[in-house]
């Protein structure tokens, strides 16, 4: 394992903090009175400042300090956060991020401008005043202001290897502490036993933590000490700050260490000590490098394959104990697989968070007020998938705001609320995850898309096409109906890229629209990229996998359909479904099996029948990508390893449907000619 550069650790930590900060700021825009949010934002800022200084990011520290100063007024309730302040604060956040990530490409002029803007919210007089009183502010909101503690350790405690100062430090992590050393018991120098602890401490802890949290601090020494613990009520809080200067000033403390370590009154009003609470959450989670998870997944994949082989051997064996072990291992492998996959799952909410900023900025730039509603943030998806979904979703959201949502005038003319709405939702549907982006704008202009498609020669003029089919043209490369090209959209690059990205994730994209009511784009995605449920089929001698998520139904091919060579269509309960004979598609010589089976596979709204020799059964397929050398192979999206150790190819249903559609179109053209 390599040791990480400390600066990288900071960058990583900062990235998390920025996310929390941005979220808090955006929430604050909607709920300006929520103190919790203000505190969250403040904590994030404070940690960035502290760690930044620690890791030598001095510019970050000093800028953040200014930012924090401004924000402190908000925290004290002197300034109400409003839309403008949030915007400036977001800009400031971006600037700090730039300072950390690309220090060379930023300019202090930008920073100064942001600071000037921020300072507009602060009267110059306040600035000095509030700094001195910072630590008392955040606790005022809760009913309990903290605890008054008296600590008396057994005087043997130093001999046992405990250092009372460590416990004081731990207390400081709970909240701002006012620590007073009680030196009453310290004997005269000639009687002083240097290994004994004679000090006691009075601690005023400003924190909304409960008693148990305090007891936790002293968990290991509770037998060796006396702890008195009295709650302070909010009202008393202000009066409880004792005049500490007297207590410490007159005495010269007998032990050097006490002087160094125990930060008593004069220092304890530094705000630095206080907001460490965010650390507590970290205990239950561990940061793991993504590559390690990938590696683990690979190993589990191999285990699943080995287990399948074992299962096959065991099935052929008469030995009951072997069968039992094989079953046991099957169960273990399955649960190990689920756990590993679970470890790679990330709630999609982390992605939605980013869009709030996007929508905030876009709605400002375009002058269209837009609200964002998200649901299903808890829906979990594979980490890789989340990362690769970000760009397509950004694109869909931009489209929705730029093209979908009308401007205020048009909206009120159409009798709609002036504020447009974009809903992003996620949810499970079987083994798939559906992510939808819905706007309540004008909807797609089907006629214009049609005209454009005819103009580009994608559709014969006057040809009959369903609305659904016409909307598919949106996914053609270079297709854009926007009459003006804006910075955001209208260049015609985009929807095809979105579609391709989603398909590379083995997902599909659907678009539906109601004129005047809005457009809904639905993405269907598999839960994970690593393992799929597949249907094992045989064509000739070869075995193949059809992703089960694409299979709609299986049936036997009727003799009449089988004989027909003129048409490759099938009547499925009134629908015409084109079909492909996989034997001829794969160039397999010889006579097909006498009872051919048909698998109806679908991608989005289109379906195709695949004619196969045999349907063997379901198969857990660990996906192995095809080699770079086979990049020109389009019919297969990957391969998997079967129980007997041989490789089987996984059919790319979307590609096969494209082939099927292509054939049926060329057939129609031939017939017409």
């Amino acid at each position, binding site marked *: 394992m390599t040791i990480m550069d400390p600066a990288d650790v900071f960058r990583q930590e900062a990235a998390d903090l920025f996310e929390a900060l941005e979220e808090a700021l955006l929430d604050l825009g909607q709920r300006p009175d929520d103190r919790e949010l203000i505190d969250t934002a403040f904590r994030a800022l404070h940690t960035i400042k502290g760690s930044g200084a620690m890791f030598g990011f001095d510019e970050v520290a000093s800028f953040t300090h200014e930012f924090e100063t401004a924000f402190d007024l908000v925290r004290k309730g002197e300034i109400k956060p409003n839309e403008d302040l949030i915007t400036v604060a977001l800009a400031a956040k971006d600037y700090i991020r730039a300072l950390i990530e690309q220090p060379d490409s930023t300019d202090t002029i930008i920073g100064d401008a942001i600071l000037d803007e921020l300072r507009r919210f602060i009267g110059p007089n306040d600035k000095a005043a509030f700094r001195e009183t910072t630590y008392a502010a955040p606790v005022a909101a809760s009913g309990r202001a903290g605890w008054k503690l008296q600590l008396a350790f057994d005087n043997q405690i130093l001999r046992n290897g405990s250092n009372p100062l460590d416990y004081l430090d731990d207390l400081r992590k709970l909240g701002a502490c006012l620590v007073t050393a009680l030196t009453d018991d310290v004997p005269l120098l000639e009687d002083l036993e240097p290994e004994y602890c004679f000090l006691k401490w009075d601690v005023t802890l400003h924190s909304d933590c409960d008693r148990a949290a305090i007891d936790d601090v002293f968990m290991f020494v509770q037998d060796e000490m006396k702890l008195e613990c009295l709650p302070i009520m909010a009202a008393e809080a202000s009066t409880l700050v004792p005049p500490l200067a007297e207590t410490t000033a007159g005495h010269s403390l007998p032990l050097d260490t006490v002087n160094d370590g125990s930060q008593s009154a004069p220092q304890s009003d530094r705000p630095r000590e206080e907001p460490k609470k965010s650390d507590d959450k970290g205990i239950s989670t561990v940061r793991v490098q993504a590559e390690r998870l990938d590696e683990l997944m690979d190993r589990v994949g191999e285990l699943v394959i080995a287990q399948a082989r074992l299962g096959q051997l065991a099935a052929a064996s008469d030995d009951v104990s072997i069968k039992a072990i094989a079953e046991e291992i099957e169960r273990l492998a399955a649960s190990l697989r689920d756990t590993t996959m679970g470890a790679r799952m990330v709630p999609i909410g982390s992605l939605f968070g980013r869009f709030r900023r996007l929508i905030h900025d876009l709605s400002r730039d375009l002058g269209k007020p837009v609200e964002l509603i998200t649901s299903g943030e808890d829906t979990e998806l594979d980490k890789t998938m989340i990362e690769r979904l970000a760009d397509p979703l950004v694109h869909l959201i931009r489209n929705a705001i730029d093209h979908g949502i009308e401007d205020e005038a048009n909206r009120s003319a159409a009798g709609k609320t002036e504020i447009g709405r974009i809903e992003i939702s996620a949810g499970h549907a079987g083994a798939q995850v559906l992510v939808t982006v819905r706007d309540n704008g004008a909807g797609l202009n089907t006629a214009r898309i049609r005209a454009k498609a005819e103009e580009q020669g994608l559709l014969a003029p006057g040809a009959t096409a369903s609305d659904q089919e016409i909307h598919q043209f949106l996914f053609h490369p270079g297709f854009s109906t926007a009459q003006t090209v804006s910075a955001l959209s209208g260049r015609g690059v985009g929807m095809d890229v979105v579609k391709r990205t989603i398909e590379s994730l083995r997902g599909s994209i659907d678009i539906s629209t109601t004129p005047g009511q809005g457009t809904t784009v639905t993405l269907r995605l598999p839960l994970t990229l690593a393992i799929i449920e597949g249907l094992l089929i045989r064509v000739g001698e070869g075995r193949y996998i059809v992703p089960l998520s694409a299979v709609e139904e299986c049936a036997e091919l009727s003799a009449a359909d089988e004989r027909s060579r003129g048409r490759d269509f099938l009547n499925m309960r009134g629908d015409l479904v084109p079909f492909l004979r996989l034997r001829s598609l794969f160039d397999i010589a010889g006579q097909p099996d006498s009872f051919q089976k048909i698998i109806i596979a679908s991608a989005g709204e289109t379906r195709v029948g695949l004619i196969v020799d045999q349907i063997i059964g379901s198969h857990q397929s660990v996906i192995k990508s095809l080699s770079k050398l086979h990049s020109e192979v389009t019919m297969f999206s990957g391969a998997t390893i079967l129980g007997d150790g041989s490789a*089987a190819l996984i059919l790319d249903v979307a590609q096969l449907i494209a082939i099927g559609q292509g054939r049926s179109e060329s057939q129609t053209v031939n017939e017409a000619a």
Partner: protein
Amino acid sequence: MDQILKERGSETSDTAVMQVVMLGIGDEVFALNTELVREIIDPVPATRVAGAPAFLPCVVNVRGNVIPLADLRVRFGMPKTDDAADTRIVVLEIDIDGDPVLVGVIADKVYEVTQISQADVQHTPRVGMHWNPEFIHFIAKWRDEFVIVPNMERILS
């Protein structure tokens, strides 16, 4: 040619040697730099890939990786033969556009690991060769036989 010998792990230019694995494919003997060779395994069931180029007709499972199986006979215009007792799969790791790619090569027979040196290198005749010259680094002499040192990167791309 000198350059290739130098590139492929030689000590000095005068006594440049290259360690190679001698393979029999069809009627010819090929010499593959041992640095490319990952392992040599017995034949395993191969899966035909429809739509793949003829010289890469199949994939095989090698230790949990699905890798393409190359048939050099196609590239050198030799007739196909069935697997025999001596048939082996030589697993190579070659560099394609900067990425290491695993590929298996079918060999009718694996002779030995040996060295060829500068002195063995023969000039590739301009005439009398019906193979694509791009596929061949150079031709060397080994036990009174001519052996082909193929350019695998070219052959497979």
